[in-house]
């Protein structure tokens, strides 16, 4: 193995050293800790002991040369049998591979140049304030933008005629503000998100732990409260016989492909959504936007909290493609490498609480979408089936599939039809 002999940093402030003399030659065998060379720095002169035993294959710095700390001075082949003296190469400071100077401590680098001293350029005096200029504060600027106000129409009562927040509020209350007329749906026409209700003051007993919310926790909390307050949720459940799905899984396992149940449900949902466009929608103000594309948001539990990456064009994907995409999300969620773009734009959501997901649950809609599916635990149960006109009891892997829909937008026929269709697709077992 070839190892480096580097210029040590002998002193916190030292950034470079001079090679005074080499005590060994290229090709020479050296012992561990044997002095290799003498160096001199601003603070100290020292002999540099060899980091390892072996053969000196390269000496990269000539006596008298000054090099930055951590610069490679020589190379030693620790397995002398493998070594051949290499041609001498001049050391070079390479910004690309060694990084820029600035890490003062142990990064190798040339001394940092002193910053230059510059004289301030002479600026022309600012122009005198023009009369009629409207003076406002940051909050007034924001309110004007929000309400589409012409500030010149609002008389200012603040110092120097400044338009204050109160002036704007008074103007809005007086009804003089022209309504923001617009044919298009304005995404910000939705009411401001209600603040999460303040918890009542709780007396703390000794040993109680107060865990402040992380930013992601706060976002989840706000979102959940807002969704429950915005949408009247209707929850419906289907009992799905997963034995054909299990069969497909077993078959693909033999082919070396491990599939979980989730991709099947995503596949079935995407197909059913294509047939039930009302469920693949978002709400904007007082309009429903039926989305052309089917982008399914799938909740993934990560160490940092709940993440919901979006599977774009899920209806165009094969089962294997869905499975691969989900594996990829899972891996990247763990390493925190999911980009914000991948977390937005969903048109429908699926949540899978996993093997400990219990019998069924009532999911909360991911706003501004209008529907969400939730997988329950898959459990083998005795079920009655009818075959050839005869009832019999068989053991089947069964799953309760929960669905929530927004009753502002979806009525019972569409909502129930959708879930029924998902069940049909799963039970039919055709995923080609």
């Amino acid at each position, binding site marked *: 193995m070839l190892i480096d*002999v*580097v*210029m*040590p*940093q*002998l*002193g*916190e402030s*030292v950034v470079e050293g001079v090679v005074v003399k080499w005590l060994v030659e290229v090709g020479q065998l050296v012992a561990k*800790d044997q002095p290799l060379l003498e160096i001199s*720095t601003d*603070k*100290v*002169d*020292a*002999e*540099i*002991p*060899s*980091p390892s035993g072996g053969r000196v294959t390269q000496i990269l710095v000539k006596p008298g040369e000054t090099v930055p*700390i*951590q610069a490679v001075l020589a190379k030693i082949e620790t397995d002398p049998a493998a070594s051949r003296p290499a041609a001498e190469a001049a050391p070079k400071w390479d910004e690309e591979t060694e990084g820029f100077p600035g890490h003062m*401590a*142990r990064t190798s680098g040339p001394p940092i140049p002193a910053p230059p001293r510059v004289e301030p350029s002479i600026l022309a005096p600012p122009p005198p304030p023009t009369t009629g200029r409207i003076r406002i504060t940051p909050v007034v600027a924001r309110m004007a933008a929000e309400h589409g106000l012409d500030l010149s129409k609002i008389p200012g009562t603040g110092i120097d005629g400044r338009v204050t927040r109160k002036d704007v509020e008074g103007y809005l209350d007086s009804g003089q503000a022209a309504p923001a007329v617009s044919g298009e749906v304005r995404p910000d026409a939705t009411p401001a998100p209600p603040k999460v209700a303040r918890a009542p003051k709780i007396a703390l007993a000794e040993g109680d*732990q*107060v865990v*402040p919310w*992380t*930013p992601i926790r706060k976002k989840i909390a706000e979102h959940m409260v807002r969704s429950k307050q915005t949408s009247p949720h209707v929850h419906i459940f289907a009992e799905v016989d997963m034995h054909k799905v299990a069969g497909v899984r077993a078959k693909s396992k033999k082919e070396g492909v491990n599939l979980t149940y989730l991709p099947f449900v995503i596949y079935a949902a995407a197909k059913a959504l294509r047939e039930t466009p009302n469920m693949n929608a978002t709400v904007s103000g007082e309009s429903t936007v039926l989305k052309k594309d089917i982008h399914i948001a799938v909740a993934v539990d990560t160490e940092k909290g709940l993440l919901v990456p979006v599977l774009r064009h899920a209806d165009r994907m094969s089962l294997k493609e869905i499975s691969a995409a989900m594996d990829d999300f899972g891996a990247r969620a763990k390493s925190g490498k999911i980009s914000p773009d991948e977390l937005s734009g969903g048109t429908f959501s699926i949540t899978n609480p996993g093997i400990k997901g219990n019998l069924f649950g009532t999911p909360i809609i991911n706003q501004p979408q209008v529907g969400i599916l939730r997988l329950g635990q898959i459990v083998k149960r005795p079920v009655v089936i009818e075959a050839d006109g005869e009832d019999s009891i068989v053991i089947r892997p069964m799953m309760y599939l929960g669905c929530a829909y927004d009753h502002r937008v979806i009525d019972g026929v569409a909502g129930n039809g959708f879930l029924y269709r998902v069940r049909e697709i799963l039970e039919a077992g055709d995923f080609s």
Partner: protein
Amino acid sequence: MTEQKDRELYRWLRLIREFEDRTSVLDKQGKLMGGVYSGKGQEAVTVGFCHDLRWDDWIFPLHRDLGAFLVKGADPKRLMAQIFGKRDGFAKGKDSYLHGGDLANGIFGATSCLGATLPVAAGMAYKFKIRKEDRVAIAFFGEGASSRGDVHEAMNFAGVHRLPVVFVCENNFYAYSTPNELQFGVDNVADRAVGYGFKGEVVNGNDLHAVMKTAGKAIDRARKGDGPTLVECKTYRYHGHSEHDRADYRSEEEVITWESRDPISLWEIYLEKRKYDIAAIRKETTEEVTRIVEEAVAFADGSPAPEGHEAMEDLYAMPIDMEAL
């Protein structure tokens, strides 16, 4: 003393020396960051004061007392990881060299304001006293630190309450570059003890027998409730203040003179006089201490480096995220 103890003391002297030497070499090989403050030449002081302590006694080493860490029970592996700035070090990489103490073994980590540990040691000794615990605190400081107000404040308080503390001045004649005559106007730092109402003693810090005898008496006195002692050990550091100090403020002659009084050589002469098989002992000890230090280096090398965000840990009992508030 028994042969077993004689050999054990020798082993400690040699282990410290090997650890110090290896640390110096690692520094020159560019493997260490920050300051390295070799205590090479002063081994008899730390061995003499720490060897016979109980595990529940406390020591307050100064920045050069790597040996005190080892003798008081710090794991050599973790000590090396500490010096490497790794996660397995006592400070988990948060501070360098001996600033991270090993509290489970009664070893307190010093700050860089030398002598600032003396009030801390006095405070701890106050607790031993009011709780009637027969434990002692050993506070090491350099003769340079003796000029600081903290040293006076601590000794004065210890004198008032007759606290179970031993103040150990390691006088190696130079505070960085400043010699004794520019540091204080008395002959010996220990002469000041009388001003605090307790005993001061001067001892040859390179003579392990002398150090152990004086240390034993001082520790006994403290443990029995007879109050503090100030012991001044005259000794010498072979290296500069740190590895990057040329130390050309002192003459070669002076260094050679002190090298001829080397604490390990003196102990070897003693072992020879006792007619032990010194050649065998030396060989066996060399093998043992080399192995221990090599294992420590390998452990430290392999210990994970802390990640950037770990800088925010261990600041408060319950983490406070100022940026998220």
